[in-house]
């Protein structure tokens, strides 16, 4: 904590370009090979998350396309059962753990939250960097497993006893379980960074009731991650223990419990769905006001809905287990809870519709993707109402109907908003606009392909096709519908290629974006595109829910932060009053080195329990390096004398 006082100054204190260059020097991130691994700025980490997660999205998509080819014809021979099982397991695990959460929560969150808060970096930047490396490590583990014929093959939820030592010998399930550990530690770390940034680093004036909905959602999601992820880490660790040191948590033969696994897994697994979907609604609630040119309708209702979803999301997990034979009475409780959670989502829908009705719509490309989201997610949400009903679920559970449902929910609730968000924020990230014509092609190809593939699956499920079968008999008459479903893949592949072409073309030749190409209202648009490493020359203050739209012509700025050390402003959680300023940490190689020792310990523990005692000292050593006190000012004595002798 520094004793320098922070002032909210008159705007006429215009900083000199001298100040800009000093800030640039202070916040400079190192370059070069080792510099890349030392960078702790949130824009770099956020971009890495997005790029890495998008690559995993492409890889997971390739697996899906091959699986669709296999299912095109009955008794097809594109994939054998062993490869097919690895493909669908790695596809599901990749899309959930390596794409959806890292992209929607971590990628957008780490990049945007500090900018929308109006601060210079994320809280605990080294933890944020460390989280990214662990996520990457988990992804590499799963995919190296697949490429070395050790691909997980027990489904993305790896039910026991199938994933236990008796029925999945070898190391496949262990690779999966450790991938979970990697990605969940990563998500937990990021959740802490994001929650603290939102609670302690908001610009002065951005009180809780003026906080953009994006921040509300990220805050709720962070808490959901903090409460949900431990359950899955516990359950994957119990599975590892069963497999590695012969504990018997899940072995029914000696009193272990196969259903315990399902309870623990879904206690995480259902909040996870909202951890993926809420970032989508966060994007929708951020974009709708921009393209309807008005403040969002029903701000309070939307915020309450988001918070309610955060709580209710923890009360619906048993609807994944209706067919296990649990008593009707307990099942009905979870039907009720699953129907109640429809209400907050419906409320958000109604508020968006009211915003559109009482706004003036100026549709741009991101808005088109929001239309797609409306259409697709609505279908997914309504088929969810059907699935919440216990008897209907008894029929369609574990069929292609469910496959259709969750692709409508997850692609509708995450991928459509993601593309809306990418078209919206890529100009901020790269500084150049994306091409709108190519973006329209991308949308229509993807929208048509998606509906061809997944709408058809509803019929397949009703006609009795179970999920996760690698082949089927021609007598079942599922062939024609499967041909239709596979044909959609061609459209979606073309769509993604158009997007990639658009991205690389626009990154180089796109029209310059400027600070605020959409005339939007939140603070990330108050700085250059791409933002400098100090984010804002002058930290802004906020007057209303849409910071830029509500700003006075002579809106105050924050002065008094030093420009020769990386200082950030700390404000209080409720009213966002400045409390003190804090010197934040600069670039460091230690988070990367720590991630190496932690990864080595995790990977080693797939093979021997001794990896933990042997790995721990190395982890401690790297942590000591990470936490080594910085007991000196980056200024030399002479510089300090010069600095303070002016005043």
């Amino acid at each position, binding site marked *: 904590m520094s004793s320098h006082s922070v002032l909210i100054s008159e705007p006429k204190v215009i900083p000199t370009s001298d100040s800009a260059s000093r800030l640039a020097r202070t916040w400079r991130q190192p370059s070069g090979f080792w510099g890349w691994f030392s960078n702790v700025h949130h824009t770099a980490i956020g971009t890495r998350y997005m790029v890495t997660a998008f690559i995993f999205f492409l890889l997971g998509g390739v697996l899906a396309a091959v699986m669709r080819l296999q299912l095109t014809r009955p008794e097809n021979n594109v994939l054998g059962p062993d490869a097919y099982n690895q493909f669908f397991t790695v596809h599901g695990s990749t899309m959930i753990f390596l794409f959806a959460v890292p992209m929607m929560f971590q990628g957008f969150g780490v990049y945007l939250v500090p900018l929308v808060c109006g601060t210079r970096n994320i809280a605990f930047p080294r933890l944020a960097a460390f989280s990214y490396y662990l996520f990457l490590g988990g992804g590499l583990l799963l995919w190296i497993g697949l490429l070395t014929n050790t691909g997980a093959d027990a489904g993305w939820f790896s039910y026991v006893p199938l994933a236990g030592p008796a029925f999945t010998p070898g190391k496949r399930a262990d690779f999966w379980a450790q991938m979970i550990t990697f990605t969940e530690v990563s998500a937990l770390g990021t959740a802490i960074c994001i929650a603290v940034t939102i609670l302690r680093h908001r610009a002065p004036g951005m009180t809780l009731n003026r906080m953009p909905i994006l921040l509300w959602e990220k805050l709720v999601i962070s808490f959901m991650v903090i409460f949900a992820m431990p359950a899955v880490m516990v359950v994957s660790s119990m599975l590892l223990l069963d497999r590695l040191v012969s504990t018997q948590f899940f072995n029914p033969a000696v009193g272990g419990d196969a259903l315990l696994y399902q309870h623990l897994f879904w206690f995480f697994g259902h909040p996870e769905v909202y951890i993926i979907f809420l970032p989508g609604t966060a994007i929708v609630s951020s974009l709708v006001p921009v393209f309807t040119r008005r403040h969002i309708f029903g701000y309070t209702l939307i915020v309450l809905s988001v918070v309610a979803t955060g709580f209710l999301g923890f009360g619906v997990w048993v609807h994944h287990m209706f067919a296990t034979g649990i008593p009707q009475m307990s099942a009905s409780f979870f039907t009720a809870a699953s*129907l109640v959670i429809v209400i907050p989502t*419906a409320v958000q829908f109604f508020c968006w519709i009211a915003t559109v009705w009482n706004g*003036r719509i100026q549709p741009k490309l991101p808005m088109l993707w929001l239309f797609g989201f*409306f259409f697709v997610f609505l279908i997914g949400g309504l088929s969810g109402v059907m699935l919440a009903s216990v008897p209907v679920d008894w029929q369609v559970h574990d069929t292609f109907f469910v496959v259709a449902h969750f692709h409508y929910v997850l692609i509708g609730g995450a991928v459509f908003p993601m593309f809306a968000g990418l078209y919206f924020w890529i100009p901020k990230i790269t500084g150049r606009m994306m091409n709108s014509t190519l973006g329209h092609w991308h949308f229509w190809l993807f929208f048509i392909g998606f509906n061809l593939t997944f709408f058809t699956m509803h019929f397949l499920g009703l006609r009795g096709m179970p999920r996760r079968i690698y082949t089927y008999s021609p007598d079942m008459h599922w062939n024609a519908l499967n041909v239709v479903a596979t044909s959609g893949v061609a459209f979606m592949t073309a769509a993604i290629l158009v997007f990639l072409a658009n991205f690389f073309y626009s990154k180089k030749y796109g029209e310059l974006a400027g600070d605020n190409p959409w005339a939007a209202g939140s603070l990330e648009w108050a700085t250059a595109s791409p933002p400098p490493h100090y984010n804002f020359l002058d930290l802004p203050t906020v007057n209303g829910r849409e910071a830029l739209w509500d700003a006075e012509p002579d809106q105050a700025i924050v002065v008094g932060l030093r420009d020769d050390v990386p200082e950030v402003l700390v404000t209080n959680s409720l009213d966002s009053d400045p409390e003190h300023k804090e010197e934040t940490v600069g670039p460091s190689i230690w988070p990367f080195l720590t991630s190496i020792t932690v990864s080595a310990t995790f990977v080693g523990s797939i093979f021997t329990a001794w990896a933990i005692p042997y790995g721990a000292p190395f982890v401690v050593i790297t942590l000591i390096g990470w936490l080594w006190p910085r007991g000196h000012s980056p200024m030399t004595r002479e510089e300090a004398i010069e600095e303070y002798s002016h005043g």
Partner: protein
Amino acid sequence: MFTLSRIGGLSHLLAIYQASPLNPGRHSTLNPVAPQAGNIEWLYWVIFWICFGAFVITILVFFTGAARKYVRQATPLPPIKEHPADGIAAWFVGGAITVTVLSLFAVLFMSIITGKKVEGATAERNAVTIQVTGHQWWWEATYPNWQANLTVTTANEFHVPVGKKVVVLTNSNDVIHSFWAPNITGKRDLIPGYSSAFSFEVDKPGIYHGQCAEFCGLQHAHMGFSVVAEPEDQFAAWQNQQVAPAREPTTAEEIRGRTVFLTHACVMCHTIRGTDAGSRVGPDLTHMGSRRMIAAETLPNTRGALAGWILDPQRIKPGSRMTPNPMRPDDLQDLITYLESLQ
């Protein structure tokens, strides 16, 4: 129907029909033959129409709003804080929330009622009880009787009397499986360490298909079964036939076939009651000649299919627990003759 579809020009039309929801299908949730599946289908359609209505209204309102407020102008309009009609919109939003809540209550209420109907009672005196045990990757069915010698054990083909209550007791020998015959009732997981019960009664005689619905490993796709619903007298006759020990071989080929069975690996896993073969690892073959299909509904029970299956099950069901059984052609032919004689 399968042979018909090969006849030239009609085949396309037929394929379209078969793929469409119009085709009743012997493995479809939309073609119920039991009150359980019937009740669920009714509930499905009620909820479907509620959801369909909600979808149409929401999309119409949304896109009407979007079209009404469309502004064709490139430069961004100045943003507004609120709109004079926001007060009216609040009433509409409140109304929409009320309608949503009421519809959800209706869905909940009907679900609970239907759930009670489908679940019914499982402790009925008069019911036929079947103990179903899941194995990787086949189904064992036992019709328990208080007299041990009247207990029927068979595999993959469940015979039930029409119009009579059938209670299924679930169990699993290895991993989690799920018993699902969609024309009859919803699915129920077979979880090792947990036993549960459910019941149904089939109204219409026929052969209905079922399949494992919980991913259970390599051959999850080839874990089918059939439910043969027949009039009560036929069912009783079937039961009497199944209770009997295996038919004694009569011809020279059959006798040699039995010797082949008892001197090869077959005997390590299979039971044929009335012989020395008594292992319970694989399906009971005492009356395998009477079954329509083999290998959990994977192949028809014909000489050719059986030969292929015995010689190399791994080619047909890779990962299957049955090992390849290379043998001399005449041994194989006699073995098949014997197995087919086990009516």
